[in-house]
């Protein structure tokens, strides 16, 4: 009997799992977790760049979900509801930590000649196209200042619109757009640095081989 019950619960469609979870069925809670935990954990991980914290936030998001699941009436998609809830949990945590707001001035040095924003956009000889691998991009995102990272993850990775981000993050739409552009430009710088480091290492290795042959 117990086995049959477990097997049925493991294969439950989402709508049925939600209905059963609203009645307190433990198997249904687990089923909902199985269905959505990867997406929520990935979201948390990208927003905080720390596995322990991402685990804690994932747990917190699902805990809040299960506390509130009885109030879910199906007006919106369940996954959207959960996703929004998880984003709020992450942002609440970041606000509690009082992360300072990021500005472009924090991460870009002024141009020595003009005193304005640096115009070294990487140069026509260095292009990222075709050379952005997953690991380098992930590492660069992790290095972004928190404010940039949140907007970049929400917009470019999670598909939120600027008006939604403004609503979630309690800022203006213009601010969201500005932070996103700065985030992308900072990512470009970081990726160029990686590219330059790699080229330098390759040159040194080649020079070492040449001198060894002589």
């Amino acid at each position, binding site marked *: 009997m117990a086995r049959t019950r477990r097997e049925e619960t493991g294969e439950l469609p989402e709508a049925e799992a939600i209905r059963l979870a609203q009645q307190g069925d433990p198997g249904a809670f687990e089923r909902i977790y199985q269905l959505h935990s*990867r997406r929520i954990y*990935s979201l948390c991980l990208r927003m905080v760049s720390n596995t322990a914290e991402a685990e804690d936030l994932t747990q917190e998001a699902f805990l809040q979900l299960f506390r509130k699941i009885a109030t879910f009436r199906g007006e919106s998609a369940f996954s959207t509801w959960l996703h929004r809830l998880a984003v709020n949990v992450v942002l609440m945590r970041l606000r509690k930590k009082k992360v300072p707001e990021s500005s472009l001035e924090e991460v870009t040095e002024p141009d020595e000649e003009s005193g304005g924003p640096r*115009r070294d956009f990487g140069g*026509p000889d260095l292009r*990222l196209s*075709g050379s952005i691998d997953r690991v380098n991009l*992930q590492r660069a995102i992790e290095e972004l200042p928190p404010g940039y990272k949140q907007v970049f993850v929400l917009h470019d990775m999670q598909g939120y619109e600027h008006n939604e981000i403004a609503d979630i993050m309690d800022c203006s739409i213009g601010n969201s757009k500005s932070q996103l552009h700065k985030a992308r430009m900072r990512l470009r710088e970081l990726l160029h640095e990686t590219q330059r480091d790699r080229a330098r290492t390759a040159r040194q290795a080649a020079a070492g081989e040449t001198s060894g042959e002589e």
Partner: protein
Amino acid sequence: MATIGCNQFMELAAPWLEGEHLPEAAAHLRGCPRCRSVVTDLEAIRAAAVHLAAEEVEPPARVWLNLRDRLESEGLIRQPGWAERLSAMFLTVPRPAIAGAFLGLFLVAGLLLGYQSDRTANQAAWLARTQTSASSLGSQLDAAEKGAVSSIRERNPLVTASLNQNLAIVDNMIAMCEKSVREAPQDELTRDFLYQAYQQKANLLATMTERGVNAQ
């Protein structure tokens, strides 16, 4: 049309990426390889980010275990019953031989579950039947163990010797727990101890079977 410089174009780069292609920005871009490079890079970053977002990471198992503990502590879900946990143990046993050996246990667990459901209706009868069931559970396990051990003995004597030694320890614990259950069948904690002892025996038999098979 007024021409714009690189700094002015950079202010229009974000809308450009969103598809807002103003004529002055387009004109600048045509004549400026640097800004073209920036736009190309930013488009590549955005595309790579979309691909990265599609890759999802599995959270460690401890996240669910911790979450379940908190859900239980808050009363949002209840702890599975004694018989349910016993049946879960049966379902996770890896080898068919051991699984067969514990079939008897599973059936008795089902009986116990039935007894628990009408416990409140007839407390005295429930206690009597629980005592009988505990005894039956032990004898079922003994019979199952004989079958499992004999199948291993034929294959690997070293494994059999180690198995007998460890089984003696676990059996001793089971005997003590069974005695306690007979004396206090209404005590949930006592039954939990007996369950733990059976679980240890199940794990031991499963492990020894694995090693016996692998050692051949």
